[in-house]
Structure formats: C-alpha cells, structure tokens
C-alpha cells in the first residue's frame, strides 16, 4: 500500500505542478486582459456615444461591438473604435466636429442595437443626452466679442431651448450689445451640430460628455428663494434682514 503511494507520488506531483502552471498561466492571461480592459474603459472627451447609450460603465458591459448601430446610421456619423484608438476597441462613437448626430426622428441606431446597450426606452430623440455643449473658449467666441456670428444658435435643432442668446452690455465699446450664446443642459441633446458648425478653426463651443460638462447641486442644499416660492410664504417668519456689509465710506 505504502509502496504504491510512493510510486504514484511523482506522477501526482507532475500532475499538480502541471495543473498549477496552467492555472497560473491562464490567470496571468486573465489579469492582463482585465488590466487592458480597465484601461480601455476611459472614453476620450471628444468621443461621444450614440443616442440612448447606457452610462459608460454599463454600456461597456452591454455593447458586444457588432456594429449594427453603425450600419443603421444613415449619415455615416457613427464609427467603430479601432484597437487602442481611445474608446474601447470595437465600440461605436462619433466625433461631433467631424460628423454630428442628425437626430433622426425614428432613431434607427437605437432600434438596431440587439443587446440594449442603446436603450430602447429612448423614443423621443430630443430627450437623448449624448453629451452637453459647452462654450469652452469665451475669449475666441465671436459673439462674446460683440460680433453677430450666431451660427451655433441658428443650427441648434433645439433653438431657443438648448441654446439661447442672452443680451448683455458690451463693456468694450460701452455702447453696443453682446449676444452671448448660453447652453441649457436640460435641453441640450449633445448632437454636436453647434460644434460642427462653429466658424472658428478650433471650435469655441464643444460637446463634452455629460459627466464632464454638468455639475450637480448637493442634495442638502436648499435655495431659500425657491423654497419660499414653493411654500408660498416665508419659511422662517419674521427673519431679520440685516443690512449688507458695504465698504466703509471714508468721511
């Protein structure tokens, strides 16, 4: 009995060693893949996902990189990312400055998605949030210099909702007006037509991912004036309104 065990021992040891080696090798492959995959998770700021795309981390678990959305896009807007091209390899994206989203009413890219990486709950394209336009360059935007370019405002599919022109005083000339393009994130779909049509060589307005472009008010914040109008009365009655502290005037 004992001798039989002794005879078997080397075989068993070889087996255990071989299996361990294989397991360690496979584990190393898996680790390498996981690291590469983790690195590929960050999306370049100018790469926008198609309409209806799940939030980026969910999107990467759902998108199988089949390219059916790209095939469905009638304007050649969507592309598949190449290996190590920034966006995770094989996933669909578009660059607004190259070809923006034309916001089809029937949203064919979402319909084509077989996995739900593009959410079929999106049926009204004006509710899509591919990104948010931001005036990134106030000192080159022609309107902000007091000129009447207005192009981003005019091409916006949600004109007067996503982009408005706010009239302010032109402090440079002292007598003219400035028509400042102001983006309203609650109405901006991130289609990118503004960025595409900005007349400057380097666009002054760019569409950024929502997470980069939009801040969030802390939940514990209450704006007194909003609460007051909601309640229809002063929340703290008889509050003493102290005089504002002004710089002391020298006699």
């Amino acid at each position, binding site marked *: 009995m004992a001798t039989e065990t002794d005879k078997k021992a080397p075989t068993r040891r070889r087996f255990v060693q*071989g299996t361990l080696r294989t397991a360690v*090798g496979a584990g190393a492959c*898996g680790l390498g*893949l996981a690291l590469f995959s983790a690195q*590929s998770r960050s999306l370049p700021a100018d790469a926008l996902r198609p309409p209806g795309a799940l939030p980026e981390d969910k999107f*990467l678990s759902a998108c199988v*990189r089949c390219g059916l959305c790209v095939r469905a896009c009638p304007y050649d807007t969507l592309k598949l990312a190449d290996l190590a091209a920034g966006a995770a390899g*094989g996933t669909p994206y578009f660059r607004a400055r190259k070809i923006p989203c034309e916001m089809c009413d029937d949203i064919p890219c979402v319909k084509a998605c077989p996995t739900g990486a593009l959410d079929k709950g999106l049926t009204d394209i004006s509710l899509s949030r591919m990104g948010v336009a931001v005036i990134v360059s106030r000192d080159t935007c022609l309107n902000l210099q007091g000129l009447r370019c207005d192009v981003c405002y005019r091409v916006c599919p949600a004109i007067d909702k996503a982009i408005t022109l706010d009239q302010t005083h032109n402090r440079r000339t002292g007598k003219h007006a400035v028509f400042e393009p102001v983006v309203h994130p609650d109405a901006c779909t991130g289609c990118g037509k503004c960025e595409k049509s900005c007349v400057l060589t380097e666009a002054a307005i760019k569409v950024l991912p929502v997470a980069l472009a939009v801040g969030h008010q802390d939940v514990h914040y209450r704006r007194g004036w909003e609460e007051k109008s909601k309640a229809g009365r002063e929340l703290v009655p008889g509050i003493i309104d102290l005089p504002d502290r002004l710089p002391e005037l020298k006699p």
Partner: protein
Amino acid sequence: MTARIPGRAAWAEHGFWSAHRYLILRRLSQLGVLALFLAGPLLGVWIVKGTLAASLTLEVMPLTDPFVVAQTLVARHWPEMTTFTGLGIVVAFYLVFGGRSYCAWVCPINPVTDLAAWLRRRLGVEKGWAMRRETRWLVALAVLTAAAATGTVAFELINPITLLYRAALFGTFAGLVVVVAVFAFDLVVARDGWCGHLCPVGTAYGLIGKATLLRVSARGRERCDDCLDCFAVCPEPHVIAPALRARAGGGPVIMSGDCTVCGRCIDVCPERVFGLAHRFDTRVDAAAPSPARPAAGQSEPAALEKA
C-alpha cells in the same frame, strides 16, 4: 528517408478532389460567410449586417455568439430578447451541425492557424510548447473572470475573430495585429496552440459539441493501416484515437466536443476509414479480406501517435 506528406497517398489513390474536398468546401464556406457580410459595405447588397459577435440576416434573423452572451451576462448586463433569440438559433444550429464546426467552417482565424500548422509540417518545426488539454477551460474561466471583474465584454477587445471581421467590414485595421500575433504564436510557439488550447470562443462551441448530432465516424476502422495521416493533419489529434482504436470497446464515432468536424481526416485517409455520421451511428464496416498495401512505412505507429 523523406518525410511522408500527409494526404499524398489519398491523393494518388483517390484523386485530387476526393483527397481535398472537405478542405475546399471549408474554405468556400469560410469565404462565403465573409462574402455575405462584405456584400453590404462593398456592393450595397445587405444580406448580413453586423459581425460574428452579433448579426442580423435579411433584416429578420438575429444571430449571437454564445461566448459574447456569456461575457455580457457575467459583466452583469441582462441583454434584450433579440440577443437571446440570436443565441437560441446559434445553439440550436450547432447542436445539430457539429459544435466546433463553427471553428472549422465559419471562423476566419481557421485559415490563419491552418496556414501556420501547414507551414510547421512543411518546415518540420517541432511540436513546440505542449499545453495541457484543460488549458482552454482555465483560459475561458480566466477571461470570464476578467469580464466580471471589469464589468466589460473584455474578450472583444482582443478577440482575433471579431477583430478580423471588424477590420474587413469597418476598416479598423489596427486590430489585425492580434491576428498576426495568433499566426506567429501557432507557427513558432505551439502547434495548434491558439484554436486548440486558448481560444475561449471555440471552448464555448466545444461545449455545444459535447451533445451535437453531426459527428465524424471511423466506421471503416478495420481498414486502418496505421499510416497516421489523420493524426498528422488533425488539429485536435487526441479526439481520433478513442474512435479509431476502439479503446475501451468504444464506438466508431468521434464523440469529443473538441472535434471541429473539419473533415480533413476524411480527405487524407487513403483507406477511406472516416466519414460523416450522426452521434448514435454505431455501424462499423466489416474487416477487409486482406490489406492489399503494406503499412505506410512507420515503424512504431503507436509511439508516434503519442508523440
């Protein structure tokens, strides 16, 4: 003594077509599938859209790759019904038509690794790194773990199958470096290393292959003269012996899910031992009266077969 070239004996005896028909049909099938996808972007005739990860045929029939679905599930995404419909069609098809027959008849990496294996045989490259049979299961497990840990369809970043299809269909050519790497690996590092031991997509189809109907049968095994041509060309040589040698009183059908039903053994066998069959087909041809030809010049076939 010059090395025996597998398949030459069958060619001399049965003619070129008979000794190459499954090889030629497979190449036509692989090219045909790619052509169905390419007809859209090249000619504007949209027959199949998408890639081998997920596709839509004639705007009605979805198809989904099983390993892609496995990854998306472990990455904690519950896909839409279309994904499961596509998966069901694929699984049902391969439950009938051979499991890893996907690897031999559809996968575009097969010609790449076949070329590497052919070059190895021609250049007389040693077998190289002998990976263990269970490696493929551990690799598949590791890949799924990576997908689960990162919450991404991780393997699609480096999957040479879909990278090659995306390169051909969407012009993302950088992905071809992985295809070149697989070729180099099979040529230099390990014989049939990628398809036979590493690729988790093939592992998934092999799982279906464990229960599939279409199989290769060594029903003429009584005629076998130990020339070993089938072992030389088979990408998964370990699957042949149990059926051919009737070990443990086994039937003639190659039951292993690793068999890709490529049919190359059917082609190259001068004695016409092999043929397609279903898995319940236990027929074995009666022994031939007497072998007309001498054994094919191998002194110790059993030892070579193990090597």
